[in-house]
């Protein structure tokens, strides 16, 4: 291959094209998978063999129309039951952006899979069936999205074809949702009336709803501003792995490998290492392709310091005047995800927080939340599957943590059952003592 050709291929890929990760949410059968199918279909992101396979399955089942939900509902059990069970990830790109979609299940039994898909999303599409309006599961998912601090929400009032494209129905649901969202922490909310089945307001504006003056869903997805969602202020570099080559050619090399959680790191910066509190300076920020002038999220780099200090996995590099808390007493909102055993006061668990592992004991349960009313039940003694509550934990070693609202990486943790090794809870830190 010629050098010019390679250089040209280079310039194609070097153009920064940003990435939007979004997830679907909402109650069972509200049309999430159909919407994703429609989005892929109308953006011509489908391959002919994928479409043919789905058409064949639909025809064999006697469906009246091709069920586009089958594009993401790929498991046997999902197709048998006609529901989504676990997240399906899908990829497509338009000239403006590249998208990673997580199509999540609406069924309450699989809430943990919805949480999995939403935890990394920049944006969530909350679907509501126009005939049914908001149901408990729509509220639960909206609440979870706000708890996970998905920065952008879009309420899609779906199945508008079944309510005669009624502006009134749309307005009523939109008002009800907006009122509910006002009680949550939702930084950015957009509302779109759609028909996932017929394709109205998905990639282009619908002719059936002339009263709607906003953009199509795709138009919004392509343009929603996400660059400022990242935290570029607080330097947080959890050390993942220490690179020390055992080699005769590279000697005395010691580098701290990790992914920048937030902030910007530069050679020469004064830094502090936690939990020890030692300070040093950044000697260099390296990648396999050579040193870089700066590192920022989501770069994976290797940081070298000017001083020899004892640093290992689980430690964290920050700035001396801007450090996370070093705390063993943690207050967190916890979403419980285990059907076999509830979270109980006094329970002991393993937890994973950034690159650090610890054990924790549940010291208290302040309250359990009622998803519909957002009422706090402070008499609750446990959290069962899919319940959310505010919990106090004591950890065996200090966590290097920020409030989740300030930092999604240093503020989130998972709870693991030490007997089964299953991930049983998701925690979002509210306060540290």
């Amino acid at each position, binding site marked *: *291959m010629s050098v010019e050709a390679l250089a040209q291929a280079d310039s194609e890929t070097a153009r920064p094209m940003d990435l939007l990760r979004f997830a679907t949410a909402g109650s069972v059968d509200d049309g999430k998978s159909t919407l994703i199918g429609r989005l892929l279909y109308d953006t011509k992101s489908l391959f002919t*063999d994928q479409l043919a396979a789905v058409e064949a399955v639909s025809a064999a089942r006697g469906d009246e129309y091709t069920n586009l939900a089958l594009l993401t509902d790929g498991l046997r059990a999902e197709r048998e039951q006609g529901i989504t069970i676990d997240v399906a990830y899908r990829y497509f790109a338009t000239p403006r952006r590249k998208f990673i979609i997580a199509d999540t299940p609406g069924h309450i039994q699989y809430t943990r899979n919805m949480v999995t898909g939403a935890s990394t999303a920049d944006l969530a599409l909350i679907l509501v069936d126009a005939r049914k309006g908001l149901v408990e599961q729509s509220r639960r998912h909206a609440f979870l999205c706000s708890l996970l601090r998905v920065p952008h929400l879009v309420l899609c009032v779906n199945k508008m074809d079944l309510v005669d494209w009624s502006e009134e129905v749309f307005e009523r649901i939109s008002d009800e949702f907006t009122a509910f969202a006002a009680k949550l922490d939702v930084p950015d909310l957009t509302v779109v009336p759609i028909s996932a089945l017929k394709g109205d307001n998905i990639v282009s504006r619908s002719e059936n709803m002339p009263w709607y003056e906003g953009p199509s869903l795709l138009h919004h997805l392509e343009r929603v501003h996400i660059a400022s969602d990242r935290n570029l202020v607080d330097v947080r570099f959890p050390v993942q792995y220490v690179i020390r080559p055992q080699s005769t050619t590279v000697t005395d090399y010691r580098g701290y490998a990790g992914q920048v959680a937030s902030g910007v790191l530069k050679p020469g910066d004064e830094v502090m290492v936690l939990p020890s509190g030692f300070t040093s300076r950044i000697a260099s920020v390296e990648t396999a392709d050579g040193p870089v002038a700066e590192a920022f999220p989501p770069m994976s780099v290797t940081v070298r310091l000017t001083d020899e200090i004892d640093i290992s996995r689980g430690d964290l590099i920050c700035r001396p005047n801007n450090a996370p808390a070093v705390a063993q007493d943690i207050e967190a909102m916890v979403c419980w995800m285990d059907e076999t055993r509830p979270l109980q006061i006094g329970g002991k668990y393993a937890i994973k927080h950034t690159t650090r592992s610890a054990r924790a004991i549940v010291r208290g349960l302040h309250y359990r939340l009622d998803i519909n009313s957002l009422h706090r039940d402070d008499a609750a003694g446990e959290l069962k599957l899919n319940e959310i509550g505010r919990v106090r934990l004591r950890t065996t070693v200090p966590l290097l943590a920020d409030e989740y609202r300030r930092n999604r990486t240093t503020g989130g943790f998972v709870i693991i059952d030490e007997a089964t090794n299953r991930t049983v809870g998701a925690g979002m830190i509210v306060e540290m003592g």
Partner: protein
Amino acid sequence: MTSPAAYQVSHLDALEAESIFVMREVVAEMERPVLLFSGGKDSIVMLRLAQKAFAPANIPFPVMHVDTGHNFPEVIEYRDQRVAELGLHLIVASVPEALAAGLVRESADGMRNRIQTPVLLDAVEKHRFDALFGGARRDEEKARAKERVFSFRDEFGQWDPKNQRPELWSLYNGRHHPGESIRVFPLSNWTELDVWHYIARERIPLPSIYYAHEREVIERDGMLYAVNEFIRPKAGEERFKAQVRYRTVGDASCTAAVRSDADTVEKVIEEVAATRITERGATRGDDRVSEAAMEDRKREGYF
């Protein structure tokens, strides 16, 4: 203060950073990782990411090839050369040896896709590997679209798609009991096109069969198969010469070629960007067995 617009990375850099993070997590937390290296483009990219993740140190784990015995010679040559260059330890889990030892039996259709699973699981057990890096991507197939980055396997190597561990943020849970293991997919979020863009950007050499060349083929089930020691024309099948390339490299007895003039990486990128058929749909006889062929194989412990 800092302007967010200035701190952008390309989507390819974002994918690379995520994959490197995943590989480092595995090495930091797991006891005995191994990387599945077939000489196919995805595993080649994965190997490059492993080099980057641990540089300037060497790749801190061995690689393993599950050899069905149905190979493209260009790919085996590439595999051996790459392993030698990087000073890696290569383990070959051999299906022909397992056949000879009576561990598995040839299936009626002669495809070795299914019998490769017990051979893989046997090697995992023998070497006590607890983490296996695989190059599978979610965009490849509908069952793969459902898989976690850290995918738990029980002591029989089975995947339970209805009962996967929740996987939040980038907190991967690799905990397991002895005998159980984790399949790890660093390329989960890459598409075929991303892989090719990366191959171009990193100037990664590939086995020659990925680029257009002339080959003697037959047409079977609408696909072009190379005539070789594993595929012989049946009655009524006509041999002819065609310009082809391979979009995937799997078992040589069930991997088909596609018509193509793309003899450079940028032509392949153009071709992949324009294609209307998925890579497995265009090239894999093994996926055509049934609608859920991949899910069924995966449940049994296949990648």
